[in-house]
């Protein structure tokens, strides 16, 4: 294959994938154009300003909180040694297994006026009880959502810090830079791409969140989208609002790309890792206390509460049905992950063949599905697929095959496709950064050995990017296990998942009963999370 054909191929493939992904987005954008004017006017005048304010507050709050939490924890565990550091490194990833909406209903249950904490305070210290802040507020939403998603920033920042070469810090020292100076001028700036990567994930997740903010009754853009749809029954108005979301995300992407153009953050020199410095005395105690505190409130306490509730409601709620829920969840998770990672690899591969703006832009577009609220994306997909279905049925009938009903829609094709669009970003990033390990010289050596094409890919490239694929797969799997709105909407008969069950019960106010599927979901999610933390540890071991 000559280079130019390869390049063309690369672009076509990326464009093809982006096309598939963007079709529902485009559908959304187009329906948005034909929105009903009086609904839109009403929304604009009475609803939109509040939504914008709230969304801005929420997103800013969550980004700041997760940045502080994630970066500080990553900094502590990457550069210092203190009691429990080895455990905390992994434990701090566990909150990833808890969906934000579960975190939300746990904490509102705990800290609400009628919850145990405030009831206790009111009984024993009435003044404190009266002053306790209202959890169902913007601040509460910021806190709870941050607790559920700070591990993304933590994970990325840790990667960035651990990948920094020792000589960077020493160079700064040799130029007179003390610890704080080095942190501010070298460590943090060099980890910026990683930190930003984590923050972008956080940004998009927060924008798209619907479950958690509903528990708080905190109106954001996404709840506005649902209001237009469920309340006004206007998919078009909902699409219009959703389009704004997409545009905001694309703008953020563009800005980030622009600022990153010139700089490079990779040092191709020796990659000796930075040795951890042992802490003593007060700093030691503070570090351990901080990590313990975060772990408690982000994981131990929520899971504890779930266990308490689950045990209470066990008899009422549990049935043999549960086995099916678990297998459904895992099956859909694995299938969705397989599809997503395959697409991610293809996209990253063709992005690697072509390093120009065009393919880069196309790839970015393909990743923007992450910011769409799940159900909105599902609407787009349902409509696109319904169109395809109609034509497909028509064609089949012409061929004399008497099928009725919907082919694609009643099958399990839609769901993994939707998952792929939704979570491509989570799978793509680890795979793509791993691709830098495939250097041109490896390709040349392979060519000399007459290995090319598929063999080249499977025998040589694949092993090199195995780590990226594994990390990406794990991240996507956790996401799919937690996913609720898309699954709720698109699942075929008999394919309820744990997340769907949680929704069904919490939307009826049955918190205790919901705790059972919720804790099962968390346990299911913890398996991939634990795998993820073991990868990190092995990476370190191999480096030694």
């Amino acid at each position, binding site marked *: 294959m000559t280079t130019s054909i390869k390049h063309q191929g690369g672009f076509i493939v990326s464009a093809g994938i982006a096309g598939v992904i963007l079709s529902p987005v485009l559908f959304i954008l187009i329906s948005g154009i034909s929105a009903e004017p009086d609904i839109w006017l009403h929304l604009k005048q009475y609803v939109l300003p509040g939504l914008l304010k709230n969304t801005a507050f929420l997103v800013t709050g969550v980004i700041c909180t997760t940045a502080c939490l994630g970066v500080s924890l990553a900094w502590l565990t990457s550069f210092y040694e203190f009691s429990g550091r080895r455990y905390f490194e992994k434990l701090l990833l566990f909150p990833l297994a808890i969906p934000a909406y579960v975190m939300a209903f746990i904490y509102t249950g705990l800290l609400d006026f009628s919850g145990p904490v405030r009831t206790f305070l009111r009984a024993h210290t009435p003044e404190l009880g009266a002053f306790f802040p209202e959890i169902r507020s913007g601040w509460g939403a910021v806190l709870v959502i941050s607790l559920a998603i700070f591990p993304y920033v933590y994970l990325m920042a840790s990667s960035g810090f651990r990948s920094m070469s020792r000589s960077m810090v*020493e160079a700064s020292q*040799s130029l*007179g830079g003390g610890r704080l100076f080095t942190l501010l001028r070298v460590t943090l700036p060099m980890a*910026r791409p990683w930190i930003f990567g984590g923050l972008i994930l956080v940004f998009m997740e927060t924008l798209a969140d619907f479950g958690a903010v509903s528990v708080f009754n905190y109106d954001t853009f996404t709840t506005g989208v649902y209001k237009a749809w469920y309340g006004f029954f206007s998919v078009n108005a909902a699409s219009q609002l959703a389009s704004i979301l997409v545009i905001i995300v694309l703008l953020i992407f563009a800005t980030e790309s622009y600022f990153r153009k010139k700089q490079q953050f990779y040092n191709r020199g020796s990659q000796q890792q930075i040795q951890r410095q042992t802490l003593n005395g007060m700093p030691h105690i503070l570090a351990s206390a901080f990590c313990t505190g975060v772990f408690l409130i982000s994981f131990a306490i929520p899971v504890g509460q779930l266990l308490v509730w689950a045990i209470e409601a066990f008899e009422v709620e549990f049935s043999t049905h549960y086995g099916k829920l678990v297998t459904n969840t895992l099956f859909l998770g694995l299938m969705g992950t397989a599809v997503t990672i395959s697409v991610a690899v293809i996209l990253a591969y063709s992005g690697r063949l072509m390093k120009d703006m065009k393919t880069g832009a196309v790839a970015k577009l393909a990743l923007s599905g992450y910011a769409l609220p799940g159900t909105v994306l599902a609407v787009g997909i349902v409509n696109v697929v319904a169109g395809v279905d109609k034509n497909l049925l028509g064609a089949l009938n012409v061929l004399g095959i008497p099928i009725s009903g919907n082919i694609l829609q009643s099958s399990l094709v839609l769901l993994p496709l939707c998952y792929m669009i939704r979570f491509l970003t989570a799978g793509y990033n680890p795979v793509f950064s791993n691709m830098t390990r495939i250097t041109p010289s490896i390709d040349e050596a392979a060519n000399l050995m007459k290995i090319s094409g598929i063999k080249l890919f499977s025998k040589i490239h694949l092993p090199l990017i195995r780590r990226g694929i594994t990390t990406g797969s794990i991240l996507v799997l956790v996401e799919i296990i937690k996913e609720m709105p898309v699954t709720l909407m698109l699942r075929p008969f008999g394919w309820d998942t744990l997340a769907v069950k949680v929704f069904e019960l919490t939307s009826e106010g049955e918190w205790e009963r919901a705790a059972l599927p919720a804790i099962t979901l968390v346990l299911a999610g913890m398996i991939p999370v634990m795998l993820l933390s073991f990868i990190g540890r092995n990476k370190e071991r191999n480096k030694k």
Partner: protein
Amino acid sequence: MCLNVDGIHKKHNRELIVAKDISFTIKKGELGALIGPSGCGKTTLLRMIAGFETPDQGTISINGQQVFGPGKNIAAENRGTGMVFQDYALFPHLSVIENIGFGPAKRKKKDLDKLISLTGLTGSENKYPHELSGGQQQRVALARALAPKPALLLMDEPFSNLDISLRERLSEEVRYILREFGTTGLLVTHNQHEAFAMADKTGVMKDGILIQWDSGDNLYYHPATKEVAGFVGEGSFILGDISPSGEIVTPMGSFESKSPGLNTHPDPVTLFIRPEDIFVDHKSDTKALLVKSHFRGPGRLHTFELPSGEQFICTDTCPSPLELDKWYGISICNRRVSLFNNNQTH
């Protein structure tokens, strides 16, 4: 004096000695070098001076100020040492000028400009490291290390990633710049020629021990031990005996001993001869078998074998080729032969 290292001792993991009682001094404005095989501890020693690693014992003083000693260990950022790293360690997220001006103290613009022109980087101020060639990156690293006007500049194999012609040119430039600034320097390298070309004093290290700290000439012509002799340049070891009359008897001939203080007869002795001190001499009675010969511009390098089985090498700028597996006469210029006791080990 600028750098004074005294009795430095360091053990790794309680077993491996990476530095054993190392002491040496570099005068202000001079450039010292450390050479030795891989793993000899030269880089570790450099890092200990810089403050990136901590010795177990000993003292280090820079410009008369003790930076390491009993109860004292000044942090690396406060030692007044600059460092050029083997991989340059340029900050990839900063431009050339930002790299050079990096540090808590503000650098004066004219100082920076002077450095930039001195290192030949004019025009590249706003480029980023990944846009520069290896040689340019090295210059940036050097300029950056010199910008804070350190008392002592440490260099860890700074030219190892460059090709030969660039290496030679840059090492000259570095020497020149250091002289201009009056900066004292210590260079770690595995390239002996580089060390001898640049440094005033060079130290040969092996297994954590600084065997000899001396000028290049002395290291070459008066190696203190067999290790030094074998490491610095090339040469041949030949066993010999001391005759009752004080003469040294070897398979290559007998001659008077010029080295005092050796054990007398009948202790055996080892001779060390440089290849340029052995000649093909058709008139000589001592004969050796030519086993190998290849061109090494200028002239050839011959490997001969003595009847005793020992082999030695000699360089020959004579144009007439010799035949393999033939015996030829050889003679020695014994003025610069080194003698070692056989029980000298290090």
